[in-house]
């Protein structure tokens, strides 16, 4: 059984975003592997290290050339090979799930790991849509995983708390903070990764057609009052704040 782990390259959380002609312009922005996906890469490696019958771990990225960096990171962390479906067009997650499902089928994949929420588009849909295309079950927002034969057990967050689960592979799992601490690639592993396969696939072969168009983008800034109150005299500061909340912000009666 092979594990497929999805990676994306996104702006660093602290990076400033700018808009150019109604779209987000990433030119000059520091890009990193989406943290949520990194948990997936790490977890795939850990499942194998725990003795589960995992033959190969394959990293898949779909998107512009810059995603090669995310794949290189995954290879340096320890995945065996990488596939890059290169395209500059922005596809919605439901459309992209077509690629994921086709790759999963052709690569003998039994488990797909994907970040629970994209740090750029904020979508949570890729895992679920891929699962549906494959007719597989899915577990989202997992924070604990164990693989024994083809039985996957673990824990995940739900609307009102969390659940422990058991499911038989194949399945799709979406990952999140708390699942593990992703390892840093070591220098020898970075060197080794350069020799690993990074296959380029032609996006046209997957028959994608974007179904959701982005027609505008705006940076949301809200002018804030930034009224600072000196905290040296706590009683006076407290009284002043409450007064402002009553009279100026009008949030207290």
């Amino acid at each position: 059984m092979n594990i497929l782990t999805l990676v994306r390259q996104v702006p660093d959380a602290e990076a400033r975003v700018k808009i150019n002609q109604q779209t987000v312009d990433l030119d000059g922005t520091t890009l990193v592997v989406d943290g949520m996906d990194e948990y997936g890469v790490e977890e795939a490696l850990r499942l194998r290290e725990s003795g589960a019958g995992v033959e190969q771990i394959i990293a898949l990225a779909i998107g512009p050339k810059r995603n090669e960096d995310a794949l290189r990171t995954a290879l340096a962390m320890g995945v065996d090979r990488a596939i890059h479906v290169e395209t500059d067009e922005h596809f919605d997650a439901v459309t992209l799930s077509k690629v994921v499902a086709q790759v999963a089928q052709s690569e003998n994949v039994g488990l797909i790991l994907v970040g629970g929420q994209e740090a750029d588009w904020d979508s949570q849909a890729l895992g679920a849509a891929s699962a549906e295309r494959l007719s597989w079950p899915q577990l989202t927002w997992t924070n604990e995983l164990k693989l024994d034969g083809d039985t996957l057990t673990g824990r995940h967050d739900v609307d009102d708390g969390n659940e422990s689960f058991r499911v038989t592979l194949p399945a799709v799992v979406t990952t999140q903070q708390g699942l593990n601490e992703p390892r840093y690639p070591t220098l020898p592993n970075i060197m080794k990764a350069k020799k690993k396969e990074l296959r380029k696939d032609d996006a046209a072969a997957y028959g994608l057609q974007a179904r959701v168009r982005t027609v505008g983008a705006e940076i949301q800034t809200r002018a804030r009052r930034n009224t600072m109150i000196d905290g040296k005299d706590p009683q006076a500061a407290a009284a002043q704040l409450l007064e402002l909340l009553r009279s100026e912000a009008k949030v207290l009666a």
Partner: protein
Amino acid sequence: MILIVAEHTAGKLGKATLEMVSAARDSGREGPITVLVLGQNVASVATEAAAVADQVLVADLPGLATYNAETWAAAAAQIAQEGEAHTIIMGGSRSGREYAPRVAVKLDAPYLEDVTSLKGNGAALQGQRYTYLARVTETVEAEGPVVVVTVKPGSFAAAAPAGAAGEQYDVELNLPAPRVEITGKSVEKSSRVALAEADLIVTGGRGVGSPENFTKYVEGLADALGAGVGATRAVVDAGWRPYAEQVGQTGKTVQPGAYIALGVSGAVQHLSGMGKSKNIIAINKDAEAPIFKVADYGIVGDINEIVPALIEASKK
């Protein structure tokens, strides 16, 4: 028809459902607004839904006693197809955003995810959504005989009853057997005003110092002001507070009238969940803390000194 899949817990219709009805009314899409209630022993939910909908479809089945992504998706897709729904609206909750993509794939429909607005634009349906950790608002649009939508909680006003109550109909469903077996569940309940509904929120971060201080200062101030309680991820990860109280990228999104952040640094992931609050008040001992950049009112000071004074003063 416009099909809305109801969110409900413990026999009560969730506010999210009323918000979805508003989204449906805003959308300019034609046809009756239909609410689908999935569950077991949901008669009271159906009655509540009937007050705001043109019609209510009720699937009261043992197989729907607990939520499951595959079952919910199958149910929503079947009803959408049989009723020839052109717009299917689900909640932007964890579960909603988990099964809605499956509905979109089943119906071969485009998916507008987690929108904060919804309107018709010719043949297309247009919505806005927050991206890049809620720093950008994007307008997205999809065309199709059928469009699937999830609605971000708290973005629409709760719909008021319109005219006569809608008719209720029982529906039959052909449900798949769930493949995920749930072996245990822990429900996290915050005893406070639900965050999504609170107009005033007091949130504690790691700077509050300890679980005991959290109770004393954060809950203490929330009680004095009649506010809901929120927490940062750092506090939740440390096990001081339940996940139900987490605000941020991977927690809840809130937009109260006022948000009081105590000992919160203001990391982007936290801001993405509370940055749309009408007023932000920050108390932090570090004058350089990023939270002050988004604050309307800030006090540079120690929680241990300022908060007791605030609790005291607010009782006057």
